[in-house]
């Protein structure tokens, strides 16, 4: 189920261009290492998922510094000089015009500060689209250090299957109720209109 990110099924040309150097970096000893104190690596991601569901991206966060790494405040594109932070983001189908939390869907990677020397592995879930097909999702690993945000881009190819049975059932129930609303309203109006009008009482 979980497919390594360097083994995509059929990448579009632009994605392939981007994935190749990133894959090379990943294959280097120590994974996607940075000179900084916080290191975030994408380990793998799922290649296919159900529609109107989620797919998972597995990441590793390591704190090589001396202060705890916190979740980034994704309401602003700023980061403290003293406290490193991590976040994730994604955008479906289209690359954002510029890298900013306001242009993408932000995700939390960690739920608590990562202490110095600690390495945490976690799966981050990303919602899938409502209809089946092949999709390109741009996933961003964001690390904040020294007052700057560093964005790593991963264009992921995703094969979306049909929705899960429980989702199909939910859609059916909801649409049935909607039909009841429309038909009920129209039916009552029709019944009122066809009833012969006698005299309006005051």
């Amino acid at each position: 189920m979980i497919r390594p990110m360097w083994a995509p099924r059929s990448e579009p040309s632009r994605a392939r261009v981007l994935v190749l150097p990133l894959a090379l970096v990943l294959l280097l000893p120590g994974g996607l290492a940075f000179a900084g104190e916080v290191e975030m690596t994408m380990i793998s991601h799922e290649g296919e998922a159900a529609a109107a569901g989620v797919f998972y991206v597995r990441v590793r966060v390591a704190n090589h510094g001396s202060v705890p790494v916190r979740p980034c405040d994704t309401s602003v594109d700023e980061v403290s000089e003293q406290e490193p932070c991590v976040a994730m983001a994604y955008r479906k189908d289209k690359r954002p015009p510029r890298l900013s939390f306001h242009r993408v869907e932000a995700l939390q990677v960690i739920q608590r500060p990562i202490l110095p020397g600690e390495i945490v592995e976690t799966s981050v879930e990303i919602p899938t689209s409502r209809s089946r097909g092949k999709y390109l999702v741009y996933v961003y690993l964001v690390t904040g250090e020294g007052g700057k945000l560093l964005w790593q881009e991963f264009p992921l190819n995703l094969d979306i299957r049909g929705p899960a049975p429980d989702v199909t059932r939910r859609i059916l129930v909801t649409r049935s109720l909607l039909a009841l609303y429309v038909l009920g309203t129209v039916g009552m109006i029709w019944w009122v209109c066809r009833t012969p009008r006698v005299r309006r009482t005051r």
Partner: protein
Amino acid sequence: MFTLVGIPFALGYLVATRVLRERQWQLCLPVAYALALTFFLCSVNAFFHFFSLKQSVWMALGLIALVSLGLLRLKPGHCSTLRLGKFEATVIIVLAMTASFYALFWQMKYSDDDFFPHAPIMAFFLYDIFPPRNPLYPEFSLLGHYGRDLTISALSVLFRDHFFEVQYIVTALNQAALVCIIYFVSRRYLRSSRAALLGVVLAFIGTMEHLRYGLIDTFTNNNSFAYLFLFLNMYLYFVALTRRDVGSKLVSAVSLGTYAIVYETHYGVLLIAFATLPFIVLARRRRWRPRYIGVAAFVVLASLAMAMVQGGTLSEVAKQHLAGVVGPTAVAPAGDVALAQQHVSVRFPKSRIAIMSWEGTEYSIFSSKLVQEAGRFAPFLPLATLLMFVVHWYWGVLVGMVGMLAIAVPASVDFGAFNGESFRFMFLAGVAASVAFGAVVGLGLDRLAGRGRVPLWATAAVAGLLALTCSHSTQVVLRRFQDVAKRGAEYFWSAEEWACNGNTRNLCDPLDVKAAIKLGSQSKPGERLLTNIYLEEISPTSVVHSIVSIFSRTFVDGHGIRISKDRVFAMSKEYRSPAGFRTTAFWNTGDMSILRGMKVNYLLVDPARVSAKVYERLRQEPQLELLDRESDPRSLQMREVYRVRLDAQSPPHPLPPDTEVVGADFPSVMRPGCFYEVPIVLRVGGGSFEGQIEVGYRIFFGDLEMNAGDEVRHLVRMERIGAGNWAGKLFFVAPYDGGQYAVELYSVDAGGERVLRGRSEPRARYRIEVG
């Protein structure tokens, strides 16, 4: 078993047709429905003080069936049909169906606006926890309006305890019934279809554009019950005034009394309006009719007598002031705690005639802010009411009076910490103003039309008014239906499926629900659980914790109360914190001594949210028994449930009397709400000291204690660092808000609490800064 739900509805129908002698079936049906809910609530509430909920429901159904059989002996009234014009019938059908299905779909997506506290309260009623307790602060009773929650819980007994689904259906039906009651009652007493139609349309979709649009989106929480019963009671009161029988007065009094546990604020407004109306009628007619005053006095006094004994806020007040019984809210608590306890203090008149806005600022009743909070028609209330008075439309006078009182009450009565909740009154004023304004416009159209048609310019003006006032809300409603058609997967019928899915998916994980359901099969209702699954904000946290509470049958404990430093309490200002001081300290240390004062029975742990060291400590802790572990290989999520079995431990020996705190090394600036291990050094003189001390601390801002009721106390194992000097670490959690504070340390031993001495000072007191 669900077929038994027909019994209360049979009673409602019999009362409507044989006691109230209601003939028009279009009004009879919604009135019967609303009466059924009222009588069912009234009887279940009476029995629930003495029996379990299930027993109460059966007894209530038995009683209702008996009364219904008795009513069958009364002569039935003749049923007739009120002929409606095609246009008005179409508008009413579309409005009723849309209001109903809009409410249904909205609830299927979001369940409820204040999911906390209503959903856990309903669940706890099913576990026989009554009177209700605050689900986030189980030590506090929630005395206020529980009528809606009790009705839904009691009805769900007939539907295998599926209270979410019952809530969705009942709320949707309430909305449709409300449209019908407002329209058909207005039409009868205003004798104008145009006035009634405009009134109901404006009340539903044209009232305001601040926080709400109108009754169309005011169905969540208690609101659908509050407004359905409001208009039902106004109708019943009119019937009681006009009919010469005893039954209609009794029905009106019982219904009004029951309303006291549904919505006290609106009940209070109705009491004043009902008591005043006969005098206004007599003044206008210039004929002395003591019967009107007698009826009003009976309905008001009988309902008040009922409200004083049936439970809820008024009964508590009566207990304290009349019977001298000291209840849980006898002593007025600090404002923040009062909010958690729903303790309302009442003082009349206010020192300044002003209303506190949703944001916490005060404004005059002549301010433009009133238009924002009470809606665009509020300024027309006095004029509209006067017009109704002039043309003898007493229904309009009553509606207008209710609206004006809804403004006058929060402006002149001081409700203490609840002054900030005045938006409840303001919205009522807005709805009443819409009905009254619609009635005035309808009256104008009637006059213009005479016996013919309404002039074209007047029709165009009304259409323009409706376009101006109703376009936004109509768009919102249309967008909702569009969303339903497009995103059907996001609308859940089953609560188990909805919980931690759909719009709550980013707040919690389905594993939380799975673990909670498993715990629910082992826990006893009302036990307490502590969890480290909380978010930065309290609102989403309260939703998550409510979900866990509902399925685990436990109270999720450990939340904090943010003591307001400026003593301003407003609807928009949050007084709760997702994690209290003790909770934060515990999840940062895993120290079991912190749990001693918390009465916690279970822990629900997300290992990813605690440090590896603390997780290991919890796993090894002999006082914790692992009950369940849930994991998901896809998401790598894991949840563990532990039972807490605290050892009986004797408190440490008293410290030698000349012990003093030599130093406490607080960080120069601390982050709000963060945890710190603060090194402390004690100098212990003569006497025996085994190196173990239980330490606690109080944090003060001026005279205000910021951690009252949530003081961290824990065992500190001290190490000797020199002659008479011992060093250890204090688990300190900084206050929630920035500022300068004083911290006072004390020790706890067999003799109780003892303030620790500082170096050559009687109290070990330190200044700290939180930034």
